């Protein structure tokens, strides 16, 4: 071992790490572990019965299913929006660019009430969809619409800077080598933005899983049909069933964690597939 202590050029590692861990513990780990500890009051059979009740299972399916579908749709349309914003000049571009952030800033309940008003049977859009047999408000489709709304900016804002950074020369080089527009997109541009796109997808997905405010108004909250898991947790809390609420919360936590882990691994794989020497 060397006698000399090696100092990094960047000072304050110990302090910074200590603060980071403390902060992370206070803000994230302690509240989360509280949920686990509180749940531990239940016996295994009690826990199992609570989290596998048919109404609860139906809510998982809706929450994760609708969130996934919304994130997929957002990945497509978010990419399209980012593409248009980066590539083409058009009047009112700055305004559109600013509008993208609106779902970030808008109180979720406002978004929920607005969406409901538009999509109900006599609303602006609902009145045209209803005769076609499509009911949006108070159905799982409504949940999907709300989750799509709140997830869009995540994809646009992660893809946009990467798309802006792609040098024009790369596309010119591809064209000079005989590639068509589509080949250039598929072989050059898409692989470059893929890591950012998966990040945007993961963020939109994660946000949708945890979304509450905008969904409860448009969902109608019909048990077994359009009831999301966060709402079930609230319902349990209102009935003073704290352990039941935390039990469901723990399940949600674990599923979310696993899903995000998978997405992160996928991202790591995308990045490293091309960095391996």
């Amino acid at each position: 071992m060397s006698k000399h202590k090696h100092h990094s050029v960047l000072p304050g590692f110990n302090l910074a790490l200590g603060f980071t861990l403390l902060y992370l513990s206070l803000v994230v780990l302690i509240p989360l572990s509280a949920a686990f500890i509180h749940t531990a009051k239940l016996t295994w059979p009690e826990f199992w019965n609570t989290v596998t009740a048919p109404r609860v299972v139906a809510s998982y399916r809706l929450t994760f299913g609708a969130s996934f579908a919304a994130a997929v749709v957002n990945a497509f349309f978010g990419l399209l929006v980012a593409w248009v914003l980066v590539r083409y000049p058009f009047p009112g571009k700055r305004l559109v660019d600013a509008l993208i952030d609106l779902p970030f800033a808008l109180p979720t309940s406002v978004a929920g009430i607005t969406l409901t008003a538009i999509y109900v049977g006599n609303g602006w859009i609902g009145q045209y969809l209803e005769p076609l047999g499509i009911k949006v408000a108070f159905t799982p489709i409504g949940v999907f619409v709300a989750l799509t709304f709140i997830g869009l900016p995540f994809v646009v804002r992660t893809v946009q800077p990467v798309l802006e950074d792609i040098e024009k020369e790369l596309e010119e080089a591809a064209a000079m080598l005989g590639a068509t527009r589509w080949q250039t997109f598929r072989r050059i541009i898409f692989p470059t933005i893929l890591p950012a796109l998966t990040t945007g997808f993961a963020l939109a997905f994660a946000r949708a899983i945890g979304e509450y405010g905008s969904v409860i108004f448009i969902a109608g909250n019909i048990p077994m049909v359009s009831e999301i898991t966060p709402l079930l947790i609230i319902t349990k809390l209102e009935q003073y069933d704290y352990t039941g609420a935390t039990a469901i919360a723990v399940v949600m936590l674990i599923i979310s964690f696993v899903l995000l882990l998978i997405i992160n691994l996928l991202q790591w794989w995308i990045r490293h597939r091309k960095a391996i020497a």
Partner: protein
Amino acid sequence: MSIEIRNLSRQFGSFVALHNINLQVNPGELLALLGPSGSGKTTLLRIIAGLETADSGQVLFNQEDSTTKHVRDRHVGFVFQHYALFRNMTIFENVAFGLRVRPRKERPSAKEITRRVTELLQLVQLDWLADRYPHQLSGGQRQRIALARALAVEPSVLLLDEPFGALDAKVRKELRTWLRKLHDDMHMTSIFVTHDQDEALEVADRVVVMNRGHIEQVGSPNEVYEKPANPFVYEFLGHVNLFHGRVHHGQAWISGLKIDVPEHAAAEDLNAIAYVRPHDIEVSRTINGEPALAAHVVHILSIGPVVRLELVHGDDLTQRTIHATISKERFRELQLIKGEQVFVKPRRLALFPNHDQKQE
């Protein structure tokens, strides 16, 4: 393949990038477009490539009008200053790209692609890097890969936009020689853009000197260096000493020296500027009977085969610097020391009378 450019013009807003350019590029030629930044050389190259469109005029490949032909159909190889390698692909895939994107009917078999790419990587002497990614390569290596990639589609014309501009001096010199050899082996017509006069003079068969959207002179490196068509070319190619003076009936007065300039016999008392290359300045310790300028040595730089002298002529008010280059032997003969007085006179000069100027 021959390339002809007819009356080409291009404007960006109010900035005239190219003004009525006419140029003939012979088959198999290595042509340099030389000029300062903003001279329009890159715009011209990009129009030939089809990456930019001209406002008016024509580009002809082998006498065939190709002005409106799409980039894809021009079969032109292009090398960018900053390499423009595809970051998400290995070196091998970068070079193979041009072959892989061909329509199925024209696409070579996988085996054939491997063979061709390996051959090209051997040509640029980097076949051992096939599995690496661009960010793992040095600048010089990246540019050689960019060249291999451009050559993969077997272009009959190779265009290079400041190909060595982002490289350090040593690599630059190496690649220059290497490009010349490659061009000769491949039997292509090549055009490269540069702002480095040494590069243009050393590598090219012919040099096109451009300035502000115009072509100032076209000629062999020797022609443009020895017989510059105008003051701009003179100043742009190599170091020069600039003198102001007057010319009248075949005689010039420059800084008090009277010099015969028979080619300007018709000049009637005109202002003129005279250029003298540093190696055309004669330095001596004595006057030798002939008129000469008195100067004193302020700096001596004796690295390499020649000695560069910085001399100052005139008193405090009118003083001006003269740069002179002399051989090592001459330097030893003279045994000059800083601060000493010497006499200088131009051995050869280029005089440009200013015809537009009104008499004062």
